[in-house]
C-alpha cells in the first residue's frame, strides 16, 4: 500500500506543485519571522548583558504615559557617593542621559536617525562595558566638546571639528565634535552623542546635582544580587529602582522588544494569511485528485483495500507533500530572515547574518505548520476517498460530477452564519467598547466560516448573475465558460474562498480606516479653531525655545501651549486610573471648540481645578466640585477639584482615558521637567495666515523637527498616519492575492486536465485555440469576481460593524471607500485573466487526437 502511495505521489507531483508552493510560502513566513526575532533578541540580549552595569540605581518608574510628555526623571547625583560607601562596591558612575533631545548640524539638518530610533545624549566615561570605544580624536572636556558615534558621523557626513546644536529641555547649546566613538557591539540603530559628565548634567538635566541613574561596579567576587540588597538597604529601601545587570538587561530588552514584536507579529500575520488561503488550495487539489482517481480508488477497494487503508494512503500523500513543502519553506524562511536582517542594516541596525540563530523551535514550528496544514486540508478529501465504493472501478462514470447535495453545508453554514450575524448585530448594538469589540471578533470569525461553508451554495445564484451576460456577449464560448464555473460548486466555492478571505479583510480595514479618517476630519473641523498647530513630526515634545521662538515671531497673536503629564487619579468609586492628562494655557477657547456639560474653560483651567469627560465622570461617580487626589510622575501628589465636565466626541482610546485636562500651570508645577507637545497659534489681527505661515517657517528653521500645520495639513497628517496601517493591509492583501491566484491557476489547470476529452471534442468540431483560451479565461474571471463579490460583501459588513465599535470611542462617521470597492472588482477580474494564462495556454496546446482518446 505504501508503495502504491509513493507511486501515486510521484505520478501526481506536477499537480501537487502549486499546493507545495502554498505550503512553502506559509512555512517561509513562519520560519523567517522566528529566525529573525530569535536572531535579533539573541543579539540584543548579548548587547544589553554586556553593557549593563552590575547594579543600576534609577528613579522609581511610578507612572508611565502612552503619550510622550517630554519629562526626564532624575535622582540626586549625591546618591553616587552614598552608594560608593556600600560594602562590595568597587566604583560608581553618574549617568546623565536623555533621549528627549533634538540634535541638528550646522545647516539645521537633524543628526539623529530618521527611522524612529532615538537620539541619545549622555555623559562619557569608559568602563569595560561601554558599547563604544574612542577611535579618533579625544574624550570631551568642557562645555563645548562632544563625541559622535561613527555610524551617525558617516551617515550625516560629520567629522571632528564640525559643530552641532543640542536642543535639550533646559535649553539649546552648541558643541564641537572632538572625537568619534565606534560601536564595539551591535549598533541598535540609535545616534549617540557624548558630553563630559558635568556638561551633560547641567545642559541636559539643568543641574550638576542631578543624574538619570547611578551605575555601580561590584568589587571582585561580590554577587550582583547581594550587592543590590546592600544598595537598597543603604538607600533606605524605597524611592528608587535598583536593578542587577540581569534585570537591567531584561528591561532594556523588553523596551526594544515591543518594536521587534511588531515586526514579528506582522510576519506572523503574513504567515497566517498564507496558511489560511493555502488551506483552500490544498483542499481543492486533493478533492480534485481524488475525483479524478475515483476508478483507481475503486479498483484498490475491489482488490481488497479497506477504507482505512485508502484514507491512510491519501493522508500519507498529504504528509509527504507537507514534508517536502516544509523543508523547502524552511530554506526559503532562512532566505527571508537574511533579507530582513539586511533590511534592518539599511535602517542602521547592524545585525550580522553570520550570527543568525535557528533555534530548535523554528524547524519544529515549520514542520508543524507545513505538515499540520496539509494533513488538516487533506483530511476531508481523504474521507471522501475512503467512501468510494468498489463498484466505482467498474462503472463507466464520468469523473467529477456535480457531487452530493449541499444540504449539510446549507444547514451548518446557515447556523454558523446566523450566530455570526447575531454577534455582529450585538456588536453594533452594544454600548461598551470591550463587549462590542469581542462580539465583533466573534462575528467576523463566524461569518467568515459560514461564508466558506455556504460558499458553494452561493455559486449558482451569484454566478448566474455575474456570468449572465456571457452567452449574449461571447456566444457559446461565454455560455460554456459560465456553465463550467457552475459545474462543480464546491470547487468553484473553495477556489473563490481563497480570494474572498483576503479581500474581505482588506475591505473591512478600508471601511474602518476611511471611517476613522472622516471622523478625525469632522473632529478637527469641530474642535480645532487655531490658525496653525506647531508640532513635532513624530509627536515628541520639543524644547521651550521653540515656544519662545513662536511667541517672538512677528504677527503671532495668540499661542496656547499643550503639555502632557502622566497622572494617576483616585476616583470616588475607589478605582485608581492611570492616564495622561493635558495642560493648556488660559485662552483655550480661542483655539479650540469644547462643549461643556457643566462649567466652562475658565473653571476648567483655574488653579487647583481640572476638567473631565462627562461620561467618564458619570461612570465613576464624579460630579462637578468633587475633589480628586491626583498623583504625578515623580511621586508629587495634590488634590484637584473638578471644575468642568466636557461633552466631547473626542477619541479617548489613545492613552488619554477620561479626557482629563487642566491649566498648564498645574503641569509646570508638578512636572517641572515637562516639555510642550503642541502650540496652537492664531495670527494677530491684521496678519494674513499665509504671511504668518511664511514667517513661522522662517523663524523655526533651526528646529527642523517641528512643523507648522494648518487644518488641512493636520488632516493630511492624520490621514497619513492611518495610511501606514493601510499599507500594511495592502501588503497582506498582496500576499493573499498571490496565493489566491495560485489557487485559481491550480483549479483551472486541474479542470483542464479533467476536461481533456471535452476540449479535444471542442477542438475537433472547430473551436479555435483563441476561442478555447477565451473560454478558460472567462471561467477564471467569473470565479475571481465571484470571490471578490463575496469578499466585498463580507468586508463591507465587517467594516460597518467595526465602525460601530469605533463610534463608541467617538469616531462616529461612517465612510465607505467606493473607489477601493470598484478597484477590487476590476482588480479581481484582472486576477482572473492572469490566473488563466497558463492553464489556457496548456489547453490550447493539447493535441486534438490525443485529447479525444484521453481516458
Amino acid at each position, binding site marked *: 500500500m505504501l508503495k502504491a502511495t509513493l507511486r501515486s505521489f510521484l505520478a501526481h507531483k506536477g499537480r501537487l506543485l502549486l499546493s507545495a508552493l502554498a505550503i512553502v510560502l506559509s512555512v517561509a513566513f513562519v520560519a523567517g519571522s522566528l529566525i529573525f526575532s530569535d536572531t535579533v533578541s539573541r543579539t540584543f540580549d548579548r548587547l544589553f548583558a554586556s553593557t549593563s552595569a552590575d547594579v543600576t540605581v534609577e528613579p522609581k518608574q511610578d507612572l508611565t504615559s502612552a503619550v510622550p510628555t517630554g519629562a526626564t526623571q532624575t535622582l540626586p547625583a549625591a546618591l553616587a557617593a552614598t552608594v560608593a560607601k556600600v560594602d562590595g562596591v568597587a566604583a560608581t558612575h553618574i549617568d546623565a542621559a536623555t533621549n528627549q533631545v533634538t540634535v541638528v548640524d550646522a545647516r539645521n539638518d537633524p543628526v539623529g536617525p530618521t527611522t524612529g530610533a532615538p537620539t541619545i545624549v549622555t555623559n562619557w566615561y569608559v568602563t569595560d562595558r561601554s558599547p563604544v570605544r574612542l577611535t579618533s580624536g579625544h574624550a570631551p572636556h568642557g562645555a563645548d566638546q562632544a563625541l559622535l558615534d561613527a555610524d551617525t558621523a558617516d551617515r550625516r557626513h560629520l567629522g571632528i571639528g564640525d559643530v552641532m546644536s543640542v536642543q535639550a529641555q533646559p535649553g539649546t547649546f552648541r558643541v564641537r565634535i572632538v572625537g568619534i566613538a565606534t560601536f564595539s557591539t551591535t549598533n541598535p540603530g540609535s545616534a549617540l552623542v557624548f558630553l563630559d559628565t558635568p556638561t551633560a548634567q547641567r545642559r541636559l538635566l539643568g543641574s550638576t546635582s542631578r543624574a538619570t541613574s547611578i551605575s555601580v561596579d561590584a568589587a571582585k567576587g561580590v554577587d550582583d544580587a547581594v550587592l543590590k540588597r546592600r544598595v537598597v538597604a543603604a538607600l533606605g529601601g524605597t524611592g528608587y529602582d535598583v536593578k542587577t545587570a540581569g534585570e537591567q538587561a531584561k528591561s532594556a530588552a523588553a523596551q526594544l522588544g515591543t518594536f521587534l514584536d511588531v515586526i514579528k507579529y506582522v510576519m506572523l500575520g503574513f504567515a497566517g494569511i498564507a496558511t489560511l488561503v493555502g488551506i483552500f488550495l490544498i483542499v481543492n487539489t486533493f478533492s480534485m485528485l481524488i475525483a479524478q482517481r475515483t476508478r483507481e480508488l475503486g479498483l484498490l477497494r475491489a482488490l481488497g483495500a479497506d477504507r482505512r487503508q485508502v484514507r491512510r494512503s491519501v493522508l500519507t500523500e498529504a504528509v509527504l507533500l507537507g514534508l517536502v513543502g516544509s523543508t523547502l519553506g524552511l530554506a526559503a524562511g532562512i532566505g527571508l530572515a537574511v533579507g530582513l536582517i539586511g533590511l534592518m542594516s539599511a535602517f542602521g541596525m547592524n545585525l550580522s547574518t553570520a550570527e543568525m540563530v535557528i533555534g530548535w523551535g523554528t524547524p519544529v514550528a515549520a514542520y508543524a505548520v507545513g505538515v499540520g496544514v496539509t494533513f488538516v486540508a487533506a483530511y476531508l478529501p481523504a474521507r471522501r476517498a475512503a467512501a468510494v465504493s468498489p463498484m466505482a472501478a467498474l462503472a463507466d462514470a464520468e469523473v467529477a460530477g456535480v457531487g452530493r447535495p449541499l444540504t449539510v453545508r446549507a444547514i451548518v453554514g446557515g447556523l454558523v452564519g446566523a450566530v455570526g450575524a447575531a454577534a455582529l448585530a450585538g456588536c453594533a448594538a452594544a454600548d461598551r467598547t470591550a463587549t462590542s469589540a469581542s462580539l465583533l471578533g466573534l462575528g467576523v470569525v463566524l461569518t467568515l466560516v459560514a461564508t466558506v461553508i455556504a460558499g458553494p451554495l452561493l455559486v449558482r445564484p451569484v454566478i448566474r448573475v455575474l456570468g449572465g451576460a456571457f452567452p449574449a456577449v461571447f456566444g*457559446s464560448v461565454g455560455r*460554456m465558460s459560465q456553465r463550467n464555473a457552475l459545474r462543480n460548486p464546491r470547487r468553484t466555492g473553495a477556489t473563490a474562498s481563497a480570494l474572498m478571505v483576503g479581500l474581505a479583510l482588506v475591505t473591512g480595514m478600508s471601511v474602518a480606516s476611511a471611517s476613522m479618517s472622516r471622523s478625525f476630519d469632522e473632529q478637527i473641523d469641530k474642535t480645532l479653531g487655531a490658525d496653525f498647530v506647531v508640532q513635532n513630526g513624530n509627536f515628541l515634545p520639543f524644547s521651550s525655545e521653540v515656544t519662545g521662538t513662536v511667541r517672538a515671531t512677528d504677527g503671532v497673536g495668540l499661542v496656547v501651549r499643550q503639555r502632557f503629564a502622566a497622572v494617576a487619579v483616585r476616583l470616588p468609586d475607589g478605582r485608581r486610573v492611570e492616564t495622561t492628562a493635558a495642560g493648556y494655557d488660559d485662552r483655550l477657547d480661542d483655539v479650540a471648540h469644547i462643549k461643556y456639560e457643566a462649567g466652562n474653560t475658565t473653571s476648567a483651567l483655574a488653579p487647583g481645578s481640572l476638567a473631565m469627560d462627562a461620561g467618564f465622570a458619570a461612570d465613576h461617580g464624579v460630579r462637578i466640585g468633587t475633589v480628586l487626589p491626583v498623583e504625578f510622575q515623580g511621586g508629587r501628589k495634590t488634590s484637584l477639584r473638578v471644575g468642568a465636565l466636557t461633552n466631547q466626541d473626542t477619541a479617548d482610546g489613545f492613552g488619554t482615558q477620561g479626557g482629563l485636562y487642566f491649566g498648564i500651570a498645574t503641569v509646570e508645577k508638578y512636572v517641572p521637567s515637562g516639555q510642550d507637545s503642541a502650540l496652537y497659534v492664531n495670527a494677530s489681527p491684521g496678519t494674513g495666515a499665509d504671511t504668518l505661515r511664511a514667517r513661522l517657517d522662517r523663524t523655526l528653521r533651526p528646529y527642523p523637527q517641528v512643523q507648522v500645520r494648518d487644518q488641512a495639513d493636520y488632516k493630511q497628517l492624520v490621514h497619513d498616519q492611518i495610511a501606514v496601517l493601510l499599507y500594511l493591509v495592502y501588503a497582506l492583501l498582496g500576499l493573499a492575492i498571490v496565493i489566491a491566484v495560485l489557487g485559481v491557476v491550480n483549479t483551472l489547470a486541474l479542470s483542464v486536465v479533467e476536461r481533456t476529452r*471535452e476540449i479535444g471534442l*471542442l477542438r*475537433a468540431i*472547430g473551436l479555435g*485555440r483563441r*476561442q478555447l483560451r477565451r473560454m478558460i479565461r472567462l471561467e477564471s474571471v467569473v470565479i475571481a469576481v465571484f470571490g471578490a463579490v463575496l469578499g466585498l460583501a463580507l468586508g463591507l459588513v465587517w467594516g460597518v460593524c467595526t465602525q460601530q465599535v469605533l463610534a463608541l470611542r467617538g469616531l462616529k462617521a461612517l465612510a465607505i471607500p467606493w473607489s477601493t470597492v470598484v478597484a477590487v472588482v476590476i482588480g479581481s477580474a484582472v486576477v482572473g485573466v492572469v490566473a488563466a494564462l497558463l492553464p489556457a495556454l496548456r489547453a490550447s496546446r493539447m493535441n486534438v487526437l490525443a485529447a479525444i482518446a484521453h481516458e
Partner: protein
Amino acid sequence: MSTSAAEHAQDTGVAARARGLTKAYGTGETTVLALDAVDVDIARGRFTAVMGPSGSGKSTLMHCLAGLDTVSAGQVWLGGTEITGLRDRELTRLRRDRIGFMFQSFNLIPTLNALENITLPMDIAGHRPDEKWLDQVIDTLGLRDRLKHRPAQLSGGQQQRVACARALASRPELIFADEPTGNLDSRAGLEVLGFLREAVDGLGQTVVMVTHDPGAAAHSDLVLFLADGRIVDAMERPTADAVLERMKRFDGIRSTLGGQPDATEHGDTAASHAAERGVAEGD
C-alpha cells in the same frame, strides 16, 4: 473497383480525395507505417464505410481526411481545397464549417443542452443556423422533445442522435463518424445507422463511417477494406455476411503474420478490443 470508378467521376462528385497519403509513427528502425501511400476518393452523396482489423489504419485514415491529424507524405483535398499544408487555424475553421463529426463516445459537451450542442459549431463560428434545415434535421432524428435536456439526462442512443444532428446541422460537405455505434446496444445502434442512411438518402449528405461491425458496414453504399495501411479491397452494396466473410480472411492473414503492433492504431486499443469482440459476436 469503385475507387477507380470514383477517379473517373467528375470533380463535383468527389467530397474528399487523398493521393499518396502516408502516415508514419516513430523514426528510423522503429518506424511504423499506419497509412502507406493510400489513394482514395470519397464520392459525394454516398455512405462510405471503412473497415479493417485493428491496426489497419482505418481511424488514422479518417483523422487525416478530416484534418485532425497531420500527414507524413501525400496530399488530401476536401472538395477543391487541399488541406495538407493548412495551418491549425485554417484547419480548425475547415472542421468547423465544412465537416461534421460523430465519435464513439463523449460526443457532447455536458454543460450544454441538446439544442446548444447541436448548434455549437455554428455558434462557435458566429453563424446563424438555417432554421428550416435545423428543424428538418431535428424532426428527422426525433429530437424535438429532447432539446432542453442535458446529455446526462439522455440515453446513449439519444446522445448519439444529438451528435448526429450536430454533424448534420451545419450541412457540412462531409460527415465523419468514428465507430458511432460502438457504445450502443444493437437496437440503438440500428437506429443511429438508420439515421445516417437517411442523412444520405433523404438529406443528400455525404457520410464516411469507420467501423469494425460488419452489420453496421452493411448499411453503407460502399465498404473500403484497409489492411496494413493500404486499401486492399472494396465492396459495393455490401451485406453483413459478405463483409464478415471478407473480414475473416484478414484474421487469417493476421494469425500468419503474428499480429500487428498495437501502437499503429494510436490510442485506439479499446476500439480494437471491441472490434475483436464484435467480430466474435458476428460468428
